[in-house]
């Protein structure tokens, strides 16, 4: 097979930082090439160089595409040559239909007048190709993230894509949606589309990739070829972090104390569709020092359960009892839930967890301003001390706590959110997808933090879509399906198969 793309000695410097240092990447015609590396390793920068976001001349090195030297001036330039990037944050217009989105900027029109029948016909064809059964007129708004991802791919296909680049396509997808997406990638490969996938999920990388290139600290560390060698996850991880990670999940002494949080007969209805019951009579408890998982598919109601308990931040007509230390507590408002000893670390840290424009310091103290003030007046010194303390304890990588959080990587942002809630001094923390979209190294650190919390006697309720993570971390796992807790497994009983079978059979 010949190389479709060859990036040779790409070096890209920003003021003060060398983001890429002599990176080489060779992608063969018709293969699926995985690009892995920790956050901040330079994967996105490399893709931006490739797609012309950083135009020719702003970097050193050469890009050879389709047998010729390519010097892309901008994204339109690279797109015209069939290089299409699908970003992690989807770029669809929610209130336009699928068809309108597919041909946005590339409308099927004569003299500015859109040919709707033609557009719909082509949309239907494209949707069939990606296996999405939706009407072309459906608003994107009404689709789940998984389906939106498929629309993005259909959009790429509409542009005669030759090299498809997917930046963490499954980060926000459920297990089954992820599988469907990976299947689609294999199918596109069969049709001759070359793709590059950036992913943190190594099992997925192993499943689809023909070649894996590992980038660390802006340089190419290794290129593994599935044809000539067996690629193991351990091998990839070793290259990514530069050390052996014998234990993906740090061990912890398991000892559960008294029951801290008890939720009984919890019912929640949908905020807009009053007839839809989202949570159905959920009962669960969390003990001191225990890490309890909630497994379930995307949309099974895990986040809704957590948010409805945390100050009724979701849903309506909520009924049920929440007890702490055996006594009923009022959790009807967020501040009351905090006072009762709860904390909720959201799955959506950017829009629900952080004030991105503010500094680390101001984010860390936000949920407990009383703890850094006297008589309503803030104590700057105390705030600095507190946030510095968390910066060190959590190993938040930043030159100072006066950095805006938007400049931090995903893993470090997550540590800021965790710091905020730890400083609020809760007894039970609800962690909603605490490791989503963050790299292996940071994940390991977060697991360590969770273990520390449990050692301090705090209760942890952990919601996760990654089953290995739940199995590796939890003492007990509740299985959730369609708004109901359908099973409870101890660490010894739990396995991926048992969890899946509980979801499927109920």
């Amino acid at each position: 097979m010949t190389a479709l793309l060859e990036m040779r000695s790409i070096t890209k410097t920003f003021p003060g930082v060398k983001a890429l240092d002599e990176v080489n990447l060779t992608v063969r015609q018709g293969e699926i090439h995985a690009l892995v590396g920790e956050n901040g390793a330079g994967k996105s920068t490399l893709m931006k160089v490739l797609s012309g976001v950083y135009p020719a001349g702003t970097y050193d090195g050469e890009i050879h595409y389709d047998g010729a030297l390519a010097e892309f001036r901008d994204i339109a330039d690279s797109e015209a040559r069939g290089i299409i990037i699908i970003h992690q944050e989807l770029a669809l217009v929610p209130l336009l239909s699928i068809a309108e989105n597919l041909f946005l900027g590339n409308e099927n029109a004569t003299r500015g007048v859109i040919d709707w029948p033609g557009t719909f016909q082509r949309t239907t064809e494209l949707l069939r190709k990606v296996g999405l059964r939706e009407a072309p007129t459906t608003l994107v708004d009404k689709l789940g993230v998984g389906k939106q991802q498929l629309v993005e791919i259909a959009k790429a296909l509409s542009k005669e894509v030759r090299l498809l680049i997917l930046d963490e396509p499954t980060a926000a997808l459920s297990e089954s949606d992820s599988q469907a997406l990976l299947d689609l990638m294999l199918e596109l490969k069969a049709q001759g589309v070359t793709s590059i996938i950036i992913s943190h999920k190594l099992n997925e990388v192993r499943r689809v990739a023909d070649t894996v290139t590992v980038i660390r600290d802006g340089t190419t560390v290794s290129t593994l070829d599935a044809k000539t060698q067996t690629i193991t996850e351990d091998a990839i991880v070793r290259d990514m972090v530069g050390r052996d990670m014998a234990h993906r999940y740090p061990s912890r002494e398991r000892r559960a104390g008294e029951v801290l949080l008890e939720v009984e007969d919890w019912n929640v209805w949908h905020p807009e569709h009053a007839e839809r019951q989202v949570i159905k009579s959920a009962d669960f408890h969390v003990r001191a020092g225990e890490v309890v998982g909630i497994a379930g598919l995307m949309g099974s109601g895990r986040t809704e359960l957590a948010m409805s308990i945390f100050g009724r931040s979701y849903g309506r007509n909520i009924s049920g009892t929440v007890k702490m230390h055996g006594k009923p507590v009022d959790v009807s408002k967020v501040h009351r839930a905090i006072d009762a000893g709860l904390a909720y670390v959201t799955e959506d840290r950017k829009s629900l967890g952080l004030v991105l424009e503010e500094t680390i310091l101001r984010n860390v103290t936000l949920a407990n301003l009383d703890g850094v003030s006297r008589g309503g007046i803030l104590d700057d010194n105390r705030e600095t001390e507190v946030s510095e303390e968390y910066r060190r304890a959590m190993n938040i990588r930043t030159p100072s706590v006066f950095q805006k959080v938007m400049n931090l990587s995903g893993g470090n942002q997550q540590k800021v959110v965790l710091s905020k809630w730890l400083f609020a001094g809760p007894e039970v923390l609800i962690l909603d997808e605490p490791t989503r979209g963050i790299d292996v190294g940071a994940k390991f650190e977060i697991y360590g933090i969770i273990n520390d919390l449990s050692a301090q006697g705090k209760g942890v309720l952990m919601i996760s879509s990654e089953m290995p993570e739940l199995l590796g971390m939890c003492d007990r796992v509740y299985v959730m399906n369609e708004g109901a807790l359908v099973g409870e497994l101890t660490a010894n009983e739990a396995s991926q198969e048992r969890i899946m079978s509980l979801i499927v059979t109920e």
Partner: protein
Amino acid sequence: MALAENTVEENQPKGVGEYLLGHMREYGLLFALIAIMAFFQIVTGGTLLRPVNITNLLLQNSYIIIMALGMLVVIVSGNIDLSVGSVMGFIGALAAVMIVNYEFNFLFTILVCLLAGGVIGAAQGYWVAYWKIPSFIVTLAGMLVFRGLSLWLLEGQSVGPFPQQFQVIANGFVPDIFPEGIGAALAPIFDARQVNVLALCTGLIAAFAVVSTGIRKRARNRAYGIVDEPRSFFIARNAIVGIALIFIMFKLSTFRGLPNVLITMGVLTIVYAFITERTILGRRIYALGGNQKAAKLSGIKTERLTFLAFVNMGILAAAAGLVFAARLNTATPKAGFALELDVIAAVFIGGASMSGGVGKIVGAVVGAFLMGVLNNGMSIMGIGIDYQQMIKGLVLLAAVIFDVYNKSKQG
């Protein structure tokens, strides 16, 4: 302490150029004000900084600045209030009708008016905070309603004049508490007809307070290793502010002394700067504007905060209405017309962000002064209202473009 050691190394002071780039906005605003003042001082042949004109400048802009304080809070919280001009006019009308037509006691009237302002703010804030109706729409409606109410209240007529005690709010001066002899003795030294010792002392004290708190803050920050402003900048900035304060107060002292309004404005500015920068309440307003959902999930009562921001705005608009009416010595149906736009412009020139969460009280005040100096300087030069409007519009646009440009540069 261990903390300091750890951070000092990692926070090596950056280069002067890099620092300036990061803080372009704050210095830019200060330099712009100085440059504009210098420009008008020259082209008006020294009229701009005459004591009588400085006094005028302060009186003319007092009500804008008072409202800009409240508007900054509203804008930082992620909202906007288009009704303040109308509310100001309405409160002026209310005061005039109560005092002139019904002969109520003026103190009682002031109290009622401030209360009415609060109620108006509450009435608008209620819809914005608890019903999630966009503030643009609610206050646009309010703008029309209160414009109409002023017309109705005044029956289309101007009502005035006010009794002397009321006029003093805007046009009065703080009497010199020092014996006359001192002022008289100082006068020849400064080559002035008279010297108001109180004003002079206030200037010195204010300058001292600004510089000494600056030095103390810098020393404390140094202990934490978080000083990033180069020494030269620190000295220059403090010197400019200190000298400007002394200079202005000196000029005022050779005219009639400290205007009452200046005291009101100064106290309010300090109070609001303190609230926004040093209190839990202020911090929460920034968080609310920065990310309402995250703020709410952090236990902040976002609805109540939004509501309070509007109540506060209403009270300040009422205060401004009283000052305005007292200054003109009459309430007219046109009072406050389109003034909300000047107030909003001042806040944006001062560096606030349309999307909320960003902005400073001092910025808003400087922004208001910048607009005020432009107005005043152009009027002295005899530039027509047509050009004045165009120039003010372009200045607003330039300020915001400058913001956006800076932001994109910092990446």
